[in-house]
């Protein structure tokens, strides 16, 4: 456009530019919508996946906490010289929306339980289990405060979540 001179040429140039810009606009019409729709879709898919993971974390957390309370309930009678009461553990687990899957007394008199919790975030993501489980150990601990009941966190190092997601379900493992 810089080489053209004279009023006629300039007006021709302007009109050419206008036509060109109209043509460009026609060609690009809708492109932003497509781009943004793609971005919205991407955000939605990614966040759906994130939500499934968050739901899984919540269920794992619940399973671990419920296992803790169920183990304490089962180990309750051992604090007063009785034997472990697994039915109490099963009851506590059931009231909290979980199911007691194992309960056994270890050699040191502590009780180890595992509970399973149905995963609420049903999903299309592969590898998401139908239930997650948590386990905990509880027993009598002797400390400065005298004999009292303790669970995984008091008996061993704090309960840790294992990262292994198996087909059977995720495991929230306490100490051995």
């Amino acid at each position, binding site marked *: 456009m810089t080489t053209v001179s004279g009023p006629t040429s300039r007006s021709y140039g302007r009109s050419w530019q206008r036509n060109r810009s109209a043509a460009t*606009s026609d060609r*690009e*019409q*809708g*492109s*932003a*919508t497509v*781009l*943004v*729709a793609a*971005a*919205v879709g991407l*955000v*939605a898919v990614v*966040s759906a996946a*994130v*939500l499934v993971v*968050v*739901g899984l*974390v*919540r269920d794992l*957390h*619940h399973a671990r*906490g*419920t296992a*803790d*309370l169920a183990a*304490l*309930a089962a180990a*309750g009678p051992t*604090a*007063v010289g009785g034997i472990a009461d697994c039915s*109490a553990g099963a*009851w*506590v687990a059931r*009231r*909290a*929306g979980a199911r007691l899957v194992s309960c056994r007394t270890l050699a040191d008199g502590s009780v180890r339980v595992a509970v399973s919790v149905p995963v609420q975030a049903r999903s299309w993501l592969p590898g998401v289990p139908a239930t997650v489980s948590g386990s905990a150990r509880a027993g009598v601990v002797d400390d400065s405060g005298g004999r*009292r*009941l303790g669970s995984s966190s008091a008996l061993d190092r704090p309960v840790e979540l294992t990262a292994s997601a198996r087909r059977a379900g995720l495991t929230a493992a306490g100490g051995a």
Partner: protein
Amino acid sequence: MVTVELAVAIPALVAVLALCLAALDLGLRQVRCDAAARTVARQLARGEAPASARRDGLRGAPDGARLIVRREGADVRVTVTAPLPAVLAPLAAVAEPRAVAVARLEQ
């Protein structure tokens, strides 16, 4: 024209993003409710004072969380409910974050 399209579409993107972040917040609130319910149930089962159990439980709970403690025979049942994130609050279909913990009272 493209500018007009963007002007309409970008708020839609922002809205979707806001919903997703709110849903993430909801999940985190549920985890915190769960932890709070468990803390209170455990402390009450051990025979701690209700006031200190409540205080310890609500320390980690979301703002505005409500605590319901009920004694059921030999058990104590604690329900913690928290308000929805502000973005999700107008949606009737979304349930408030809620967690239940049950503990057997120690002799």
